């Protein structure tokens, strides 16, 4: 048996096992975020009064965080490119820049939420704010999880180990970006 038979071999689908697994994770995430967003849409359309609550979300905070996540997706895909070329050091550096994006996102989110909570908009204010904190909060947990995993992968990559994992975390990270791409217009633009 090979020393490392799991992630490097091909599965029946012709897709490396690790990558297939990440896609399955994303499929389950689609049902989680899709369900949340679907339910939000139904309530938003059934409750005209939500427009009055939605007015108070801070578009510029949302827009800046979209910029941050798009940029971090860009560095994540560049890290993948570097890993493909066998340049683990470069891949690790770009992954850490992505982690920087994740941290920036969380800091901005923290400032935004602190301000909103100070103004009395909390998760129990009304159903709109419940959705707002639930959806953005669940997304923020994914950002935190991604950042932690990227640190581990970068630590390996810098030594030239497990470079295929750079692509795997990248796919996950782009998905986190995708979710935000939809949360941004839902919570900040269409109001």
């Amino acid at each position, binding site marked *: 048996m090979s020393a490392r038979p799991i992630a490097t071999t*091909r599965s029946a689908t012709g*897709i490396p096992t690790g990558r297939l697994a990440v896609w399955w994770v994303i499929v389950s995430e689609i049902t989680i975020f899709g369900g949340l967003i679907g339910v939000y849409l139904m309530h938003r359309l059934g409750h005209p009064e939500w427009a009055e609550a939605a007015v108070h979300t801070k578009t510029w905070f949302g827009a800046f965080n979209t910029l941050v996540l798009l940029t971090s997706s860009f560095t994540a895909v560049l890290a993948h490119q570097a890993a*493909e070329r066998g340049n683990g050091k470069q891949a690790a550096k770009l992954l850490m820049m992505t982690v920087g994006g994740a941290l920036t996102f969380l800091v901005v989110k923290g400032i935004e939420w602190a301000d909103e909570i100070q103004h*009395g908009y909390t998760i129990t204010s009304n*159903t709109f704010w419940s959705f707002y904190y639930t959806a953005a909060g669940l997304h923020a947990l994914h950002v935190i999880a991604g950042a932690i995993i990227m640190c581990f992968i970068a630590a390996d990559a810098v030594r030239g180990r497990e470079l295929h994992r750079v692509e795997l975390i990248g796919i996950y990270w782009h998905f986190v970006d995708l979710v935000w791409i939809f949360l941004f217009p839902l919570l900040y633009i269409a*109001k």
Partner: protein
Amino acid sequence: MADHQPAQSSSDERVQRDEHADHDEHVDYRKIYFTLLALLVVSVAGPFLGILWVTLVTAFGIALVKANLVLQNFMHMRTEKRVIKWILVSALALMGLMVAGVAPDVMRHEGQNWVNVAARDAVARGLSGGHAEDEEGEEEIEVVPEVDPTVFSAGATFNITCAVCHGEAGDGAGPAGVALTPSPANFTDPEFWATRDADRIFTVIRNGAVAVGGSPLMVGWAFAYDDEQIQELADYVIAFRPGGQ
């Protein structure tokens, strides 16, 4: 899966790398990134025009374009095996099915035999009260009305409890009422009021129609409501009387 050998796995790695080299050559990530940023600017600028359909297009249309760019180029869906597309599409289709199935119940607040009183009240409350902004545009603490489901409302109680037989319009044509003999009282019928007064209405709601020699189908509600609430219900019923009280 189980029959792989070391030699095979190393050649597999080479195949993977070749596949990746494929999208490596053809995708200009920088160009995709700047396109995404330009689209972000458009989606933020859209609402400034103040036109609803422009806002919706720049918000959700552009979100779909951005999502597709990320999916095709950053997640390499363009060169990914087809089975992945099918898995993702299946998940999205099931989501759509769930939403389509639930949406009518959530988005509508009343149907043939039901009323979502809580949702309807929430809309009414939200549209009448709500947030407050002073002239400088600075936000004040939102006054969130305390929602207490235990607060009694004669109208809501009538629509939930009484209207099943008597109908929301008080005309005795509630969904369960049509099956009853004798028919439930029609509060909009002047003849009905010829022999009724406020005290009698109160007594019947409180102790049931049997207390005044009427049908046992109209049960008493003293176990559920106190006298003050029953008085409010009686007033609500009397308000159906044609030509006022």
